[in-house]
């Protein structure tokens, strides 16, 4: 199971990579393995505003939906902000989410609104690894 050291993670298995003041978002290696073969993604519109994932979950925390041959799962937003870019390549090649979840399988790029405060709510790699150990037990 890959858990790159330079990323932040959520309880719902999204990852965030900071690129200057923008945040690139995807789903983790664990998530893609659990879903199995990804066949379709509903991606957000560029310009959509989202809130950081928290409980209780509401529709304004959703970035989209990832669909595999056996399941459907919501992609939650790891940060509050505005969608600036989405990965158009996934429309014709959804399998990139499986083959390269931290690379070409990225979902979208966000412009965060409240970055410093919200980063504290995300998991660092060791904490995410710990979460996966619990889930796998």
């Amino acid at each position, binding site marked *: 199971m890959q858990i790159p050291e330079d990323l932040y993670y959520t309880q719902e298995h999204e990852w965030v990579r900071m690129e200057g003041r923008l945040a690139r978002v995807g789903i983790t290696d664990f998530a893609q393995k659990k879903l199995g073969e990804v*066949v*379709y993604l509903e991606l957000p519109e560029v310009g959509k505003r989202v809130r950081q994932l928290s409980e209780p979950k509401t529709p304004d925390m959703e970035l989209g939906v990832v669909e595999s041959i056996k399941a459907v799962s*919501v992609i939650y937003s790891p940060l509050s902000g505005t969608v600036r870019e989405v990965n158009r390549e996934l429309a014709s090649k959804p399998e990139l989410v499986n083959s390269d979840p931290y690379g070409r399988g990225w979902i979208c790029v966000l412009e965060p609104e409240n970055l410093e405060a919200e980063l504290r709510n995300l998991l660092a790699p060791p904490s995410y690894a710990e979460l996966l150990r619990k889930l796998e037990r």
Partner: protein
Amino acid sequence: MTNPYVPNPPSVRAEMLKELGLEDVEKLFSDIPPECRFAGLSFPPKSEPELLRFFGEVLSKNRPVLCFMGGGVWPHHSPPHIRHLTGLPGFRTSYTPYQPELNQGVLQALFEYQSLVAELVGLEVVNASMYDWATAVGEAALMCFRLTRARKFLVPEFMGPERYSTLLNYARGPGMEVVRIAQHPRTGQLDLGALEAELEGAAGVYLENPSFLGFLETQVEEISSLVHRTGALLVVGVNPISLGLLRPPGDYGADLVVGEGQPLGLPMAFGGLSLGIFACRKELVRQMPGRLIGMTRDAEGRRAFCMVLQTREQHIRRERATSNICTNETLCAIAAAIYLSTLGSRGLRRVAELCASNARYLMRGMESLGLKVLFDAPHFNEFAVSCPLPAGELNRRLLEFGIVGGRPLKGDFPRLGESLLFCTTEAHSKEDLDRLLGALGECVR
């Protein structure tokens, strides 16, 4: 453990009630208002021979009638081989027959249904059916909303009343507004100016062709280009038999096609046995409601059929599903597939021609009796005429001649006044048509 197919014996029921802390099973139903409860039959117990005799006597009071009433369910001929084939236990008694390991026959029959209807309507994808035309229209409106996020749905003034009422129920959930577009009082053609004025912010535009009142919409190309200019979707409702003669809606730009499959070999059965036809363009399939059967290969490379794109559906997508109806009309869809495949394209064309030419014969005949045909337009197999006496009274007199007359229209469309919607099909011979005209002549004299 008790047998799962045999009701629980009293001892087990008593145990269950004890576990639930109830004295009486009736307590479980205490939330249902008494007036909604079934009080039981006031029918003395009878033996089987007595029952058969009783029902035989009741049924013997029926007399054969000649039916000219359509308006939602139509008196087409259902060839006997359909009843025979759909009576095969593998078809008739199967419930949710979707396991590919066990149900290749049913799955293939549904796949054939989808393929035949796709060819008929001119669109790539057809689902395994909805309940009826009305629910298919409701689902179509919701699908337009999901695809466009717009909340306005435009429908023709003379839309089928039951379909309109069902559509309003569906529209309530997402808060959609249903707007009626005027149709020309003499020709029935859609008022394009009125349509254009309402198009801003519309999710979809719904056409019925043939219309509920039987006339055809001739401006389909103009309507299609107007609708698509604003990004709305075009939904066309059809009687599938008419497509034996008319252009498939997919040819003139329909994004979705809905319709009633009952004319495809299903009896009228006091209002249906209905079969909701639902078709869409391939690009829209992710937002389509209902079950879809696909063709694939099994592990050994043999042709096989199974459900596909189930992730749209309730059992997987839960509240995000494309519809909260997971069921369909499998047996009726199989009947329609048998009907279409035994008629073939020439047979279907012949049936459609008979419907249209019979209607023309009746319209001319009624006009020569002094009855007024309400719309000056090409018609398929139904048409509206104004009555010189109250429509209900005219129907009562026709019944004395053993004839079921048309559907009265005034209640649903007050503007049309005392009028009847007559229907004819390939099941009517020239003698039948003349019998109706003769009886009408007597009634209006």
